[in-house]
Each structure stands twice: as structure tokens, then as C-alpha cells.
């Protein structure tokens, strides 16, 4: 029995080590793993992947494990859209040739990496300020707030074939992101990243709740399953 426990412990520690090692070796070549976030546009323009040093405040662990095994594009024009657009006959187009695929990990590696990422929580203070109230907003009401009053679709795909391209797709946002993170980022994108492409639209608390709930409704739709 003792031997089994030792073997199990060794297995566990090597998995953790593998996760931590992978973060430093592989992930750090494209992602900011240590912070702080970009303070100048020059640095923001050079980003290859989203900042991960606050991954534990941002992502849902189960989504990380699954996405890392089968990574699919979330940002139609990459992290900084300006690096992935080109002039076309009818206006600017996505320059797909410049977009690269994320590497896929094995189940074991994905689990180990996700576990390490979830430990990275330097913004617990921002998360603690958000409280998600259970509310029963209808999809129609959410859609009104989202499109007519806020105009989120200008930059984000809110359905697989509807919306803008410079921001990450939103119809899968609630699958990927923790609700408090969504609320906090909407409240002040600049508190997370001063050079964020996302503007602060000064939403009221009520509207923040509505938008987070609407994002959850969008992600629950089977048509938007990813």
C-alpha cells in the first residue's frame, strides 16, 4: 500500500512539474506568463497570445482542459487584429495566411497545464468586487441590451455568422470565462489591461448583470456549441 501511495505521489508531482515546466518552456513564447500586462501600444501590438498570468482569475478550468486538447480559433483576427488584416476590394479583410494554430496537448498535459494556470490569480481583488446575481433575463431582452443599447456586435461575433471580427467571439464566452471575470472586465477593461482594444462603456450594475446572463444564455444554445 505504501508503495502505491509513493508511486501515486511521484506520479502526481511529476504531472505538476510537467505542467509548470510546459508553462515556462512552451506557453511563455507567445503568452505573458508573469505580468505586468502591456503598458504601451508597442508592447500590445506585439502580443501573440492573450496574457495568461491571470489565467486563474479568468478561465473555467474544465474549458481549458478541453480546449487545450482541441484548440479552435476564438479570435477571428488574432490577439491584435492589426497584425492580421489586409486591404481588399470592398474594404479590410482578415488575412488568414498570417494566423497560426495553437498547439494541441495530450489529455494529461492539458490537465496538468490547466491546473497550473488556475493557480495564477493576481487579480483576486478585482474578482472579489463582483457578485453575480441570479436573474432571469429573457434572451430577447439581453439581445436588445447587447445590440441596440451597447453595440457589442460591432467588434464581436455574437453568433457564428453575425458580428464583428476584431474582438474574441462572444457566443462561447461564458463557456470559457468565469462570470465574475466577465463582469469585472466589462466594468473596466482598462483595470485588467490599460491598452485593451475594448472600451469602457460605463455600464450600470444592472446592465452588467444583464450582459453576463445574456452571455450565459448564448453559450447554452446548442447552435453555439463549440
Amino acid at each position: 500500500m505504501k508503495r502505491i501511495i509513493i508511486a501515486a505521489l511521484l506520479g502526481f508531482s511529476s504531472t505538476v512539474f510537467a505542467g509548470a515546466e510546459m508553462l515556462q518552456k512552451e506557453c511563455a513564447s507567445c503568452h505573458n506568463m508573469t505580468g505586468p500586462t502591456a503598458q504601451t501600444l508597442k508592447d500590445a501590438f506585439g502580443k501573440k497570445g492573450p496574457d495568461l498570468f491571470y489565467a486563474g482569475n479568468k478561465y473555467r478550468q474544465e474549458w481549458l482542459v478541453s480546449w487545450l486538447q482541441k484548440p479552435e480559433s476564438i479570435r477571428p483576427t488574432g490577439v491584435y487584429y492589426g497584425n492580421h488584416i489586409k486591404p481588399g476590394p470592398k474594404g479590410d479583410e482578415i488575412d488568414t495566411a498570417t494566423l497560426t494554430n495553437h498547439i494541441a496537448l495530450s489529455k494529461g498535459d492539458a490537465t496538468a497545464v490547466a491546473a497550473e494556470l488556475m493557480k495564477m490569480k493576481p487579480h483576486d481583488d478585482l474578482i472579489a468586487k463582483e457578485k453575480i446575481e441570479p436573474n432571469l433575463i429573457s434572451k430577447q431582452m439581453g439581445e436588445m441590451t447587447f445590440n441596440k443599447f451597447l453595440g457589442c456586435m460591432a467588434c464581436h461575433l455574437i453568433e457564428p455568422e453575425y458580428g464583428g471580427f476584431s474582438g474574441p467571439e462572444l457566443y462561447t464566452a461564458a463557456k470559457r470565462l468565469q462570470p465574475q471575470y466577465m463582469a469585472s472586465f466589462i466594468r473596466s477593461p482598462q483595470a485588467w489591461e490599460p491598452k485593451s482594444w475594448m472600451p469602457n462603456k460605463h455600464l450600470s450594475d444592472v446592465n452588467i448583470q444583464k450582459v453576463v446572463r445574456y452571455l450565459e444564455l448564448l453559450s447554452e444554445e446548442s447552435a453555439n456549441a463549440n
Partner: protein
Amino acid sequence: MPTKYLLVILLSGIALQAQAKESAADNYKAYCVQCHGMKGDGNGVNIRDMSVIPRDHTDAKAMSARSDETLFKAIKEGGPSIDKSILMPPWGDTLSDEEITDLVKHLRTLCKCSFGS
């Protein structure tokens, strides 16, 4: 020079860098191009499904009909502040007033126009 003075100088350099003003060209590239386009003609990568097409900043006639104050307000407080589209968001938390003033000047170089000209 004692080490602590060196440290003070280094740290104040970092603090200054963090607050440094960005150029209007870079701010335009970062925040405006996504909708107003690489050429500034309103044909940005985002416009496919928009109900209102972004302003063509190279259109001297339309741009000269707007004062610098109106352009400043539209950038800082968003489209609805000048009775225009919600799709133009407020950039007041992203850009300083000085950067917005520079952006207005940048718009005037794009349209090659001034108010009332």
C-alpha cells in the same frame, strides 16, 4: 553615484514610461482602424453586419461639417453624445484628453480639411 539614486532614477523612468502619451497614428491603428479601416475610409474589418457604416475620415465634405470640439466629444464620449450611432463607443477611459486632441488633429490630416472649409 550611490546605488539608491540610480534606483530612484530608474524607477521614475519606468513610471514615466507607463504614463507616456501614445502617438495619434498608433492610437488610430489600435482603436480606430478596426471599424474605420486601414485607409480611414470607413471600410474596417468589422463592418460587414453593421446597421450604420462608420464615418469615412477621408471624406472632406462630411468631416469639414464637424467642429474639432464635436470630434473630440464623439471620441471621448461615443457616438450617442453627438446623436450618432451607439456603434461608436466612448474612448474616454482608454485615451487621455491630450491623446484625443492629437487624434482630432490626425483626423484633419486624413480628411485634408478643417471645420467649415
